């Protein structure tokens, strides 16, 4: 299934509408069109990391600097970043607004995504990270804005899981 051009645009516009101009990311298929937009937009600063855990540090730096920041990654990247989430963000009370491509779930044809997909929600719960699923293009902009607001008020990591419904046509 192709990645949704329209919905990638809606998500990108949602990020901008939330007042966020700084983005760290590690690319993956579902995030490709979104990241392309971020790269092409002169108002948005995209920092591409080599591993997702770096983005936790970058987000902390952006927070200290007072710059609204969002992290884009795949759920497997989130799994790779957990120590940073726990031992930097949660330990110090640093907000993280994470948009996570929720691979390996309902309708997943690729075996390699499935284990990560199956454990993602339970891992988020185990870490007490509030999360919501984003399925509806009409609601996702509001969900992004609310996720960001909640991360700032709770001084906590917050995750919005981008589902297949939203990301594929």
């Amino acid at each position, binding site marked *: 299934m192709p990645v949704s051009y329209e919905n990638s645009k809606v998500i990108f516009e949602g990020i901008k509408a939330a007042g966020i101009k700084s983005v760290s990311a590690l690319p993956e298929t579902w995030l490709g069109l979104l990241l392309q937009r971020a790269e092409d937009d002169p108002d948005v600063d995209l920092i*591409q990391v080599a*591993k997702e855990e770096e983005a936790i540090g970058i987000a902390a730096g952006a927070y200290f600097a007072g710059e609204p920041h969002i992290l884009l990654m795949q759920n497997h990247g989130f799994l790779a970043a957990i120590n940073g989430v726990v031992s930097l963000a949660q*330990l110090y009370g640093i907000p993280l607004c994470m948009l996570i491509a929720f691979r390996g779930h309902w309708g997943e044809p690729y075996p390699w995504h499935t284990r990560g997909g199956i454990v993602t929600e339970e891992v988020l719960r185990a870490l007490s990270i509030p999360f919501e699923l984003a399925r509806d293009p009409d609601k996702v902009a509001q969900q992004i804005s609310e996720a960001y607001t909640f991360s700032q008020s709770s001084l906590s990591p917050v995750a919005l899981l981008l589902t297949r419904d939203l990301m594929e046509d």
Partner: protein
Amino acid sequence: MERAKCIEMIYPELEDKLVVTIMGACAQELYNLGHRENFFYLQHAMGLASSIGLGLARHLPDERVIVLDGDGSVLMNLGTFTTLARYRPTNMIHVIFDNGSLLSTGGFDSQTTSGITDLAAIARGAGIEHVASADNELQFGEAFLEALELDDLSVIVAKVKAVGPDHYGMDLELPENAFRFRRFIREKKQAAAP
């Protein structure tokens, strides 16, 4: 050379910079010289000091950011050199105190202890242009001054003895450090605003 001496040497220069240090011995040695509101002590998450530095430097172009890192910590995030090289924060100096040891956790040898692994070469290979190695205090002082004069990203790998402070303890809770560090930056920005 000892890390505590190196930090003492550059301490006056840190007054008007944003400083991020790794945990344990290094954090304590900086703290013992006198805490300042512009110091952030990363007390547990290994590898991320330079990533925090990049986040600060990229969003605060008018500030100078100094990262005090360790061999064990940086070995957990070697990819950071490639991200730093790619985005090249010209207002950041990344100092790595290489004591060949996981000193703060019992002093086990690290991968750099035999001298086979050269962190400076790794940084260079990642594409960082200004990389210096220092084996003694004179070299370290010179490298740091040179880095300050440059308007560019610098990495300094300082070979130090695997020795730490004689006591541990800070009168500073971890979230308190984060809140105050952030407030310090906000107030400085407000004061500078026209």
